């Protein structure tokens, strides 16, 4: 009973069980709103699941694997690239370069695609380039900010322990910020899925869920569009959870000071 009141008070910590009830209740509400929504164009759950069933037999599974593989490759590449670039900002020479790269966030893909096409040797490579570029500009911005925000005291501690400046960078910037790096990765890995549709639309040779989604959308098969979106959402949640779990395992200290665990 107390827990029920706590649900509406600020900064209250509620038990796991209560949270489970709360989430179940809110999910049910969401489904109810969906089922009873008066909007004509909104496909009903039954239709969506029928579409999902049909799409599955049209090869949704293998398209998902294609897209997932592409996305994984892109996330890995942009993570490596962005982390290296962000760590490099400890060296003054690289700071303007990284600052410029992070400003490229404002550009759209239009026009840039042309140059990437010239560089790429295959459709897969083109999609990979586009994805890596569009994720990396956000990733490097987030991570460079993390590096810039490290307080002086952390560096001084490492120096008073007789570390050379390279060792200081490794201890304070790389190891010390690992938990935050995971968090930045988590945010930007989600961006990959958002960009996927666009990128797979530009080069459709390999297919993938993005291409499938665009096809269904063109023919106004809204229930199919919803079905595909739903699968992407589930996959994305899985990815988010996996990165979160990895962070928990690698950086157990990160959550110790939080009020909400």
């Amino acid at each position, binding site marked *: 009973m107390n827990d029920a009141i706590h649900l509406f008070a600020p900064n209250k910590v509620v038990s796991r069980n209560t949270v489970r009830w709360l989430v179940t209740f809110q999910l049910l509400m969401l489904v109810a709103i969906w089922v009873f929504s008066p909007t004509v164009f909104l496909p009903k759950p039954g239709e969506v699941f029928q579409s999902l069933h049909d799409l599955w037999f049209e090869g949704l599974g293998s398209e998902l694997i294609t897209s997932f593989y592409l996305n994984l490759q892109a996330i890995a590449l942009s993570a490596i690239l962005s982390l290296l670039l962000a760590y490099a900002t400890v060296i003054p020479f690289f700071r303007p370069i990284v600052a410029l790269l992070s400003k490229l966030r404002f550009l759209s893909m239009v026009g840039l695609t042309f140059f990437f096409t010239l560089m790429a040797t295959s459709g897969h490579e083109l999609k990979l380039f586009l994805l890596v570029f569009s994720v990396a500009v956000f990733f490097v911005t987030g991570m460079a900010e993390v590096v810039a925000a490290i307080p002086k005291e952390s560096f*001084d501690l*490492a120096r*008073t322990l007789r570390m050379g400046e390279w060792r200081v960078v490794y201890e304070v910037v790389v190891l010390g910020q690992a938990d935050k790096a995971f968090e930045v990765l988590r945010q930007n890995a989600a961006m990959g899925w958002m960009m996927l549709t666009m990128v797979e639309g530009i080069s459709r040779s390999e297919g993938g869920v993005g291409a499938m989604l665009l096809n269904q959308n063109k023919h106004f098969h809204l229930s199919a569009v919803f079905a595909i979106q739903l699968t992407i959402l589930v996959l994305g949640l899985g990815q988010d959870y996996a990165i979160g779990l990895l962070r928990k395992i690698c950086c157990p*200290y990160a959550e110790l000071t939080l009020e909400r665990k």
Partner: protein
Amino acid sequence: MASHTYGKTLLKIDNVSLEYDGRPILKNVSAEIKDVIRPGCTTGQVVGFLGPSGIGKTQLFRIVAGLNPPTSGRVTINGVDRPVQAGQVGVVAQDYPLFEHRTVLSNLLLAAGQKENDSKVAHDKVMQYLTEFELSDKARLYPVQLSGGQRQRCAIIQQILCSDHFLLMDEPFSGLDLLMLERTCALIQKVANMDELNTIIVVTHDITAAASVADHLWLMGRDHDLNGNCLPGSHIVETYDLIERDLCWEPNIITQPRFMEFVREVKDRFRGL
């Protein structure tokens, strides 16, 4: 008065001045710490820099630690003709920083490994300190899981493991209750007396606590012009030799009338700054 002699110079602050954008903060600060030798016992050194808030204690602290260079003058240790480098002097900053991403044990092993190449020896040394400072059962915890006092001890051990006998402490007495204050004073003396050459430099505005642990005190202050206005740039205005005054190495010294008399004297001088 206890019999004692002085050995070699351990740390020398030589005419140190510091300016920020042309504004003088420190002006010709000089002080010399010598090895205090007492026959028959291992005696480390504890000295204190006293001064009101904003006088430049923390700035001097950073210079002595080798973290910031002075505008002119220099700090040398053990008579070596070279300015002090970061790492030679252990530094315990006010908030007791530790690497939050490492456990207590890992923090200490890292520090021990910086000086000791043999990992077995380093490990044994860490274990010995952990036992001595009652932290053995905390070895696997992360710094955020320690109490304030445990964190302080951990930060102190980390710095002793890595430095050459020197330990600088910025405001080690601030925000402590009576019991913790006494324990910190005892801790400082214990660490100091672990080795003949151990030297602890305390930077603080807590006169009583500093006087109860130190063998020498330096009071920092500024000059005044004829109208009583402060002139910029602080320096040492008074040096107190507590050995000379027979205020050292005596248990329960703080209950003695002559100690209270001394503290009153310093406080009066402090108010006049």
